[in-house]
């Protein structure tokens, strides 16, 4: 049976959602920012902003220099999550196999649900129309349809905004690759491009025609995947929700006040740890590893990760480990970013009660229940006092948990 995969990518997502909500922002350069401070980063720019050179990753102060009348607004995660749920729901109605790849991208396996690529194209047209009519007429998406997951994504990446591109067979790959660079391919960044260049591979066609042995030697298993992907051989599958769970859970925060004050830093560290702990317990998992990392204004970074003898799940147990590292560190330089997280995740052992910190766990679960019912910070440790406005809810493109 002909395999048919559809990939949908929302165009300039966060900016388009803001322009959908507020029509006075339409047809104007708009940047959605992580923070509005001069060093805040633009996490999504509208098509109009991109035209004047304001791209994702640009700083607020740089954007204002490039185009002084640019509209800059702080991100609103609830808006984007709601719209994502809506377009996921539309897509999920067309196939039993659906992979939410990120907040603005998803795959559908249409194999068995449509008979041909022509039918898939008609279905894509219906999805475009339903996103416009059911969610918002300003929202656009690009859709790629092909016989492998990789080529479906390549199709949506190179399709125009609001368009559908079908890659029905291997015969057209050479023509298609001709006008694109290595970095247009899913998973190839500038660093990998350089490594490929060192092997004499300068274009996608070079990569397609490169020997498997050469790629295997240079990149191991990933080399074979590269070869298979560009040659239209399927080596991937749509992932289930369980497979999509990340192997670690972490939170980071760029500090509004760069400092060596450990009291301030530990308060924020606790708040970040509380978020990590809450997500870990929501997934009903425990962790056997904790990591902490911070970077300073001198660009020096410090970090430590360690495996634990006993599984942890309570905020206090995770914090104790991270706290030790930061507490003992001699901070010569002002800290500008803090990161904390857990890894080696697994289902809780039945023996956790015997060997784990049961009191901490019970307390954490009781606090979770109260906070879930009333407010995310209804009850919190005194250590987090006056941190309400710090490390607020943020959204990342790779976060699929809605």
């Amino acid at each position, binding site marked *: 049976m002909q395999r048919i995969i559809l990939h949908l990518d929302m165009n300039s997502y966060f900016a388009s959602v803001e322009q959908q*909500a507020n029509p006075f922002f339409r047809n104007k350069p708009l940047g959605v920012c992580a923070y509005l401070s001069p060093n805040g980063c633009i996490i999504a720019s509208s098509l109009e902003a991109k035209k004047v050179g304001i791209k994702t990753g640009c700083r607020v102060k740089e954007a204002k220099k490039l185009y002084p009348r640019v509209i800059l607004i702080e991100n609103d995660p*609830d808006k984007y999550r709601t719209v994502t749920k809506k377009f996921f729901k539309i897509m999920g109605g067309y196939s039993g196999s659906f992979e939410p790849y990120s907040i603005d991208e998803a795959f559908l396996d249409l194999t068995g649900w449509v008979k041909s690529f022509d039918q898939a194209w008609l279905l894509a047209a219906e999805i475009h129309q339903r996103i416009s009519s059911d969610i918002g007429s300003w929202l656009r998406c690009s859709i790629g349809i092909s016989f492998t997951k990789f080529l479906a994504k390549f199709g949506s990446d190179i399709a125009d905004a609001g368009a559908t591109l079908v890659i029905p067979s291997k015969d057209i790959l050479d023509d298609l690759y001709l006008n694109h660079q290595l970095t247009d391919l899913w998973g190839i960044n500038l660093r990998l491009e350089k490594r490929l260049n060192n092997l004499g591979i300068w274009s996608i066609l070079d990569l397609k025609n490169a020997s498997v042995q050469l790629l295997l030697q240079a990149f191991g298993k990933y080399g074979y995947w590269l070869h298979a992907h560009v040659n239209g051989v399927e080596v991937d599958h749509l992932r289930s929700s369980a497979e999509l769970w990340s192997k670690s859970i972490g939170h980071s925060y760029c500090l509004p006040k760069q400092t060596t004050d450990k009291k301030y830093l530990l308060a924020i560290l606790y708040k970040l740890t509380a978020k990590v702990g809450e997500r870990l317990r929501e997934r009903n998992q425990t962790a056997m590893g904790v990591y902490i990392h911070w970077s300073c204004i001198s660009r020096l970074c410090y970090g430590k990760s360690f495996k634990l003898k006993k599984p942890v799940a309570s905020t206090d147990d995770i914090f104790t480990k991270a706290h030790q590292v930061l507490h003992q560190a001699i901070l010569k330089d002002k800290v500008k970013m803090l990161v904390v997280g857990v890894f080696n995740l697994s289902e809780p052992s039945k023996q956790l009660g015997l060997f784990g910190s049961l009191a901490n766990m019970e307390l954490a679960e009781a606090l979770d229940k109260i906070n879930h019912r009333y407010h995310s910070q209804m009850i919190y440790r005194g250590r987090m006092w006056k941190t309400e406005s710090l490390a607020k809810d943020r959204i990342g493109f790779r976060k699929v948990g809605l």
Partner: protein
Amino acid sequence: MYDQINEPIEVVVSFKENNILPKYFSWRRKIYKVNQVHLVHTSKIGNQILYHFSVTDETNYFQLVFNPFTLTWILKTLYSNG
């Protein structure tokens, strides 16, 4: 940019095909006619779901928030074009 208002308002709504749509609202003794609802999104406070309506009249953008537990509306945000 956006002005944060967070003041209670009175709203006239219509119920249509499982949707609730604001038509008019009064704020600071003035009545505003909603020309169009552009986006509806939700947020949560604890286990309470709040409904946010992004609406416009001729010259302003408003975000109206409905709390179905307390049956109250607030004007959360205002943006004036120009």
